[in-house]
């Protein structure tokens, strides 16, 4: 079942076209969003997170048109979002910050304390829940960001560079969490780390120059790498560069 449907999505930042008539659909599972810097990944995530309005096209999420204020409100209740740089209040503890985000999502008051503890436990910060965020390391702060994104058990979870700053062990644990979340939700992960996609995603979407460059499974992208002359140390990295080159060749014609 498709939970996110994007049709003719167009996003422009002043004179730069970030997304150019993009058509995409995402269902339940973990979707890796790959692409070079400036490809339009963050623009797509921000539109889906309802924090940026597109200049054209339509987006339907969870059966609602997000251009409609009422539909957008309903979507926001069931949305989780981790921006690249989410910002936090220095005086807040982990518990307070996640609780504040739960309040913004209008979670039922009675459920919130338990939901906050569960979300913080899922990202491995249960022992730091009453510690001020400003005293945490960069990787821990990132995990606080993931906790606030999942506090409302979102039906759609949007993560922009979620593993930035995580150490290898934390990344492995995070992939496990992604797989767990993807079993019941639509999870869209924007990342530069192709190996995270290979390990945790059920589908790969490659964007370049604001357009769709490739869609398939991680296995298919790995196979593409094995059968082509792409650059990279890992087969899926070779598949990534091969798909990107193929898209650029077609676009240049």
């Amino acid at each position, binding site marked *: 079942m498709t939970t996110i449907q994007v049709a003719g999505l167009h996003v422009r930042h002043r004179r730069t076209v970030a997304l150019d008539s993009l058509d995409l659909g995402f269902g339940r599972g973990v979707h890796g969003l790959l692409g070079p810097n400036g490809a339009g990944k963050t623009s797509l995530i921000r539109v889906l*997170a*309802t*924090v940026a309005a597109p200049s054209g096209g339509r987006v339907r999420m969870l059966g609602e048109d997000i251009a409609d*204020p009422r539909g957008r*409100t309903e979507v*926001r*209740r069931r*949305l989780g*979002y981790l*921006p690249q*740089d*989410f*910002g*936090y*209040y*220095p*005086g*807040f503890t982990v518990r*307070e910050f996640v*609780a*504040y*985000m*739960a*309040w*913004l*999502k*209008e*979670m*039922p*008051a*009675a459920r*919130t*304390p338990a939901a906050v503890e569960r979300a913080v436990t899922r990202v491995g910060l249960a022992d730091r829940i009453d510690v001020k965020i400003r005293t945490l390391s960069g990787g821990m702060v990132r995990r606080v960001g993931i906790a*606030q994104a999942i506090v409302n058990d979102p039906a759609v979870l949007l993560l922009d560079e979620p593993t930035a700053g995580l150490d290898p062990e934390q990344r492995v644990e995070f992939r496990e969490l992604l797989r767990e979340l993807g079993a019941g939700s639509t999870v869209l992960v924007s990342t530069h780390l192709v190996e995270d996609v290979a390990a945790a995603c059920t589908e790969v979407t490659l964007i370049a120059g604001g357009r769709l460059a490739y869609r398939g499974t991680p296995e298919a992208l790995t196979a593409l790498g094995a059968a082509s002359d792409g650059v990279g140390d890992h087969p899926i990295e070779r598949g990534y560069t091969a798909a990107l080159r193929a898209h650029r060749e077609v676009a240049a014609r």
Partner: protein
Amino acid sequence: MTSTGIVLYARSRALPQTVAALAATTVLAVWATHSLDSYLDPERRVPVVALAPLVAATAIGSSLHSASEELDRTAVRPWWRRRLTHLLCLTALAAALLPLAVLSSAQIFGPPAMVRNVLGCTGLTAGAAVVLGARLSWLPVFGYVSAMYMGVSGLRGTSLPAWAWLLEPGAGGGAWATAAVLFALGGGAYAVKGARGTP
């Protein structure tokens, strides 16, 4: 959790510190007004009536900053009500506290002038927060008040131009209208758009 949420919102915007800053400004203004010089020379009330609203507006402007602006934009409920309530409550508090400093001067630079200046300065600051971000929102009002204060000797006559609303001594209708328009425009822009996101 609703009350907890409101408390967390207040802390996220440093509202306790802002209220403390407004109280401290009032104490300072009372002290300045009742110092010997200003008692003997009513004209010395100009600094209090001009500078106290500037300090109050600066404190209010700082509270408009959101550290998690991107996440705030995913809030279920539209922000304009919260922003408007936030701004109105702090402005009302400043407008209630600061006139205490000039109670003994009912006609010239008295409470009406103080309330008017609080409205005008806060409106300017709220509008600046939309354009420049909350952290720099004090700049335009600081520039305006400084220019007015330094140029006060050049303003003489019974009726001052609309742009000199800050220094209108009595309850002039034009000065009040200008300050009210500034507050409506600046406050309205802030309620609708919010402060510009800054790192």
